[in-house]
């Protein structure tokens, strides 16, 4: 049996999903889209049930790609049973969605979630009365403590599709609805009005019903503002919310760099340089100087015609040494720390408040506050960042967002490597990139036709994060990161090493020397890392650090690597999400790289340091 979990965003749908399903959860893309959904298995009363967590949707008339997928999934599973999750404190708007689903004839139950929050707020709903009015079981639940979920599943197994006729009959019996005159159907009473009304309700009629139903089932008692409400308000007000946001970002960065510093410099660097590298150098077949050894373990370098073995994994450039060290030793701890903090911020419910605070600025560059979500995601990895642009409504917004994300937002892997090789200039590079994000966002907004709709956003109440769910989310994201990163890094080093050994990169460097040395002001050898950057930016930056140049040239080169082209993963995601617009994006990208990096070169020239 299939069960779809459906409901508004932020009603605790995912929490219910996590409570219901076991460890085997698959997160996958909906066919033909990049909108992901989760699927899991559970057993209840001897029945095997497949539970699908549908993306949150406010109505059955989609407004963005994610909502469209929710609707498609509903259409694709007409036989599935539905758990419609409603926030008990926001009964009316939940009820509207539930009525729409009942009218469409699904077998469903309503989970009246956040029952505890409603209780605290002195809001009470009569679930029995509500259930009898709308003709489907209504079960109060508290997802965080799994309260009511067993009853919910019991009722779900027993439920039959009610359908529009049954709904109208019940509503009419309760005196809530007057129908059209009957044309001789079976479900009517005394031939006066028709129960199986021919068409669905209009939006106005449905709202009128919702209001009438909630009048009979909902009582709102006196409610005092609590400390949680006060904090919720202060963190969204500009005067008090901005300092708070600054503190949160401080904590984010501080914990990120402390943790990755501890793991990389404290332990993993030592482990790789002192144990892994010598061990590999010792046994790998072929030995120093041979082709396979150079590619896989240690390229080494020549000094006065003598081959010298590398002392650190960062220098060696072997697939099995540098490659593994970069991904497992440097990037993994950084990405792990990033995902933990991101999951915490998400689950607490802070991100929407940050979005409100940022809307003012992001609106000026043609986006709106919610663009903060793809931006922050991109700081972890650009691929999910580009994927998340689907939450923006218009083509123009998605184009602008995708373009400036891919160009200007360095990914977590890249930041981690920068912290490792140029710790004192990371801040400057990041600042220069963020400046570009706003400058070119502003310009693109002016140039590209199309509108920027105003923000409409739901601001949820703060919630205590559930550690088990945070752990699960972090594990899933880290796993998918590793699955993407390791093959690409391996391939990247392999290709670059092979190109090097055949002189292709030297030829490329010679050919493009005027551009590199004249326009960007960096050594021509930068060409090599740029090839690698297409596979992994972190790898490219590690390779840059091995080239002899001044610190200003190094900064320019790193900025160049960051913005000149998206990595291959981002490239394909942009192609998938953007379609034709992607090529426009690419054109912008290449011209921006020339302008923004050239400008940095100009700054150095004016300052007289180059």
């Amino acid at each position: 049996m299939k069960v779809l979990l459906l409901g508004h965003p932020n009603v605790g749908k995912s929490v219910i999903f996590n409570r219901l399903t076991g460890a085997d959860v698959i997160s996958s893309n909906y066919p033909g889209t990049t909108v992901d959904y989760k699927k899991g298995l559970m057993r209840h009363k001897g029945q095997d049930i497949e539970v699908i967590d549908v993306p949150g949707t406010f109505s059955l008339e989609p407004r963005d790609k994610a909502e469209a997928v929710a609707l498609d999934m509903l259409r694709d599973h007409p036989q599935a049973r539905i758990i419609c999750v409603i926030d008990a404190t926001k009964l009316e708007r939940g009820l509207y969605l539930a009525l729409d689903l009942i009218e469409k004839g699904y077998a469903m139950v309503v989970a009246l979630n956040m029952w505890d929050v409603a209780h605290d707020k002195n809001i009470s709903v009569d679930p029995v009365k509500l259930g009898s009015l709308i003709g489907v079981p209504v079960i109060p639940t508290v997802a965080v403590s799994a309260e009511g979920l067993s009853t919910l599943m019991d009722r779900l197994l027993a439920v039959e599709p009610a359908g529009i006729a049954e709904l109208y009959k019940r509503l009419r019996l309760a005196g809530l609805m007057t129908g059209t005159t009957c044309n001789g159907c079976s479900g009517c009473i005394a031939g006066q009005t028709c129960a199986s009304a021919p068409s669905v309700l209009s939006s106005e009629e449905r709202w009128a019903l919702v209001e009438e139903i909630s009048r009979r089932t909902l009582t709102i008692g006196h409610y005092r503002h609590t400390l949680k409400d006060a904090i919720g308000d202060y963190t969204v007000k500009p005067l008090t919310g901005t300092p708070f946001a600054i503190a949160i970002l401080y904590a984010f960065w501080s914990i990120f760099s402390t943790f990755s510093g501890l793991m990389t410099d404290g332990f993993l660097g030592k482990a790789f340089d002192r144990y892994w590298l010598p061990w590999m150098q010792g046994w790998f077949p072929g030995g120093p100087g041979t082709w396979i050894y150079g590619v896989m373990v240690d390229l080494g370098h020549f000094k006065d015609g003598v081959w010298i073995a590398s002392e650190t994994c960062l220098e060696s450039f072997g697939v099995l040494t540098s490659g593994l060290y970069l991904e497992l030793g440097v990037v993994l701890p950084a990405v792990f720390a990033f995902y933990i903090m991101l999951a915490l911020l998400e689950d607490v419910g802070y991100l929407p408040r940050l979005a409100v605070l940022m809307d003012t600025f992001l609106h000026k560059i043609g986006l709106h506050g919610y663009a903060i979500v793809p931006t922050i995601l991109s700081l972890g990895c650009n691929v999910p960042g580009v994927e998340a642009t689907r939450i923006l409504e218009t083509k123009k917004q998605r184009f602008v967002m995708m373009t400036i994300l891919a160009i200007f937002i360095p990914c977590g892997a890249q930041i981690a490597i920068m912290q490792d090789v140029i710790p004192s200039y990371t801040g400057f590079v990041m600042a220069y990139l963020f400046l570009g994000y706003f400058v070119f966002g502003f310009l693109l907004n002016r140039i590209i036709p199309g509108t920027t709709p105003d923000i409409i956003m739901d601001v949820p109440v703060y919630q205590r994060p559930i550690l088990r769910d945070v752990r699960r989310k972090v594990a899933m994201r880290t796993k998918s990161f590793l699955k993407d990163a390791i093959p690409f890094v391996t391939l990247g080093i392999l290709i670059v090493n092979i190109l090097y050994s055949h002189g292709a990169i030297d030829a490329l460097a010679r050919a493009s020397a005027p551009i590199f040395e004249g326009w960007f002001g960096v050594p021509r050898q930068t060409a090599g890392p740029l090839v690698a950057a297409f596979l992994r930016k972190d790898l490219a930056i590690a390779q840059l650090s091995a080239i002899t140049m001044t610190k200003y040239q190094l900064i320019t080169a790193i900025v160049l690597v960051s913005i000149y082209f998206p990595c291959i993963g981002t490239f394909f995601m942009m192609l998938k999400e953007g379609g034709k617009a992607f090529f426009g994006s690419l054109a912008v990208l290449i011209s921006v790289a020339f302008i923004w990096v050239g400008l940095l070169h100009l700054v150095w020239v004016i300052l007289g340091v180059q």
Partner: protein
Amino acid sequence: MIKDLYELDLGQTGVITTIEGGRRHHLTDLGLRVGKCVTVLTRQPFHGPVVIQVDQVTLSLGKGLAHKIKVEVA
């Protein structure tokens, strides 16, 4: 007195009389409809969005949208 939602003072409450513009349905789905009591919680500077409260729902609306919502203030 009829006012724009954007023009309400912070903390002031009004009853929605009309919602203009093409995104009315979207607002309705979120719980913002004619006849509802709405309170302005805060307004962001530099023409930023407003944050409002309707029943238990907290919403953030851009300035342009907030201008299109008229409320009756007692």
